[in-house]
């Protein structure tokens, strides 16, 4: 299967990459892990005249923790995220999402930024990232902007990014206090699976046996973009955790979902599963919060 011809650029700094994207704009596509772009180019879904690789920009690889702010470089692979101690200990739901993305072979290539900019509704990293309130930093020659991920996605394959912008890093304020998080992916296979439904949950408690002071529920694959289940979050705030509360939150989340029928599953099944998975994700998040 042949790839169409293109000109290849391999900048070694972010500023050079921005300069190239500033000149080429929509004629160019950025290449990170390639697990999406190369496949789409083979299928002739996209035919860029220029491909700009980010793979030689060392600053885009790695994680920095500074003053409670975690900065994840755009080109961190899923395997590196899943294995990073700072992620596993502070943001275990993100490690869980990274561990179930694609296959072991894909995880050695696919990057965190690629999983965001491809904007697939079923992607594995946006729900956990959104559950922490993560932000994407978009860089171009004239400057940078930081976008809350809940405002980043516009629809399948569509984001707020301009053609000359590069997603250079993701920033997350490391949660403080007694918090717990979780990510659950539902599919029919364990590998190389596109989620039927996925749910990420984040809760914070004021005391080990206290009430919920912060709640974020994010639903994937049940709408054109990953969705915050706002009414489920409202139902949880200020309440003390219980199975009954989590069941009510699950029902609320099912109401927030906007699933469609497709060959992988019916809208009705997906909606039901949002309820079940939200309940389970909250229980798992509570266990983590209490075990801190």
């Amino acid at each position: 299967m042949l790839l169409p011809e293109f000109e290849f650029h391999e900048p070694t700094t972010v500023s050079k990459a921005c300069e190239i994207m500033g000149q080429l704009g929509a004629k160019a596509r950025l290449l990170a892990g390639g697990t999406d772009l190369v496949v789409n180019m083979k299928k002739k879904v996209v035919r860029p005249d220029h491909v700009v690789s980010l793979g030689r920009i060392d600053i885009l690889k790695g994680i920095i923790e500074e003053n409670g702010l975690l900065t994840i470089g755009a080109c961190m692979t899923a395997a590196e995220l899943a294995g990073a101690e700072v992620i596993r200990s502070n943001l275990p739901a993100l490690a869980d999402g990274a561990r179930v993305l694609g296959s072991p072979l894909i995880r050695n290539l696919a990057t965190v930024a690629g999983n965001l900019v491809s904007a697939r509704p079923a992607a594995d990293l946006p729900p956990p990232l959104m559950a922490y309130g993560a932000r994407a930093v978009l860089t171009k020659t004239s400057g940078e902007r930081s976008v809350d991920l809940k405002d980043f996605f516009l629809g399948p394959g569509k984001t707020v990014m301009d053609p000359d912008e590069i997603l250079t890093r993701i920033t997350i304020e490391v949660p403080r206090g007694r918090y717990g998080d979780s990510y659950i992916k539902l599919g029919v296979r364990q590998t190389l699976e596109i989620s039927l439904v996925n749910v990420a949950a984040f809760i914070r408690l004021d005391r080990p046996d206290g009430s919920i002071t912060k709640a974020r529920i994010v639903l994937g694959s049940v709408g054109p973009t990953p969705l915050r289940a706002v009414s489920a979050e409202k139902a949880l705030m200020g309440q003390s955790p219980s199975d009954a509360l989590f069941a009510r939150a699950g029902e609320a989340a099912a109401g927030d979902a906007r699933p469609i029928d497709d060959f992988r599953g019916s809208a009705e099944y997906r909606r039901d599963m949002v309820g079940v998975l939200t309940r389970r994700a909250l229980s798992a998040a509570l266990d983590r919060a209490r075990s801190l």
Partner: protein
Amino acid sequence: MKRLIRLTVNDKNYEIAVKPNQTLADVIREEIGLTGTKKGCEMGECGTCTVLLDGKPVNSCLVLAVQADGGHVLTIEGLETDQGLHPIQQAFVEKGAIQCGFCTSGMILSAKSLLDQNPEADEQEIRAAISGNLCRCTGYQKIVEAIQSVKDQGSVS
């Protein structure tokens, strides 16, 4: 326009002029002539094109050769030594883990990567490690047994 890239494949150094739209799988097979690396789906789903790139198993059909410039590649041809087959290869032969053989290169390289990092891998970990490699003969049981037998001998090198 072609570019000159440097690749170390199975400990041999190559300088090859490649086009940007050639994948690593194509360059390994067609320019270097090592056809043990297979091309199945060419979409990153089947794992027959698995090679170790800088020690990590990847789908070589999704990597542009120019991206691999300067990299170290291990293909199935790099496993056999003067002493004979690699223990994982030997185990595949002895346990009947090869049927049509098309997935075998990728299976063995994924298994090698696992056992290099985790010589004590259990069955669950073995199944997870080869989960990106499809065997359309569906001979998974023998493949898992072969990998387990290498682990039990403790003879991975």
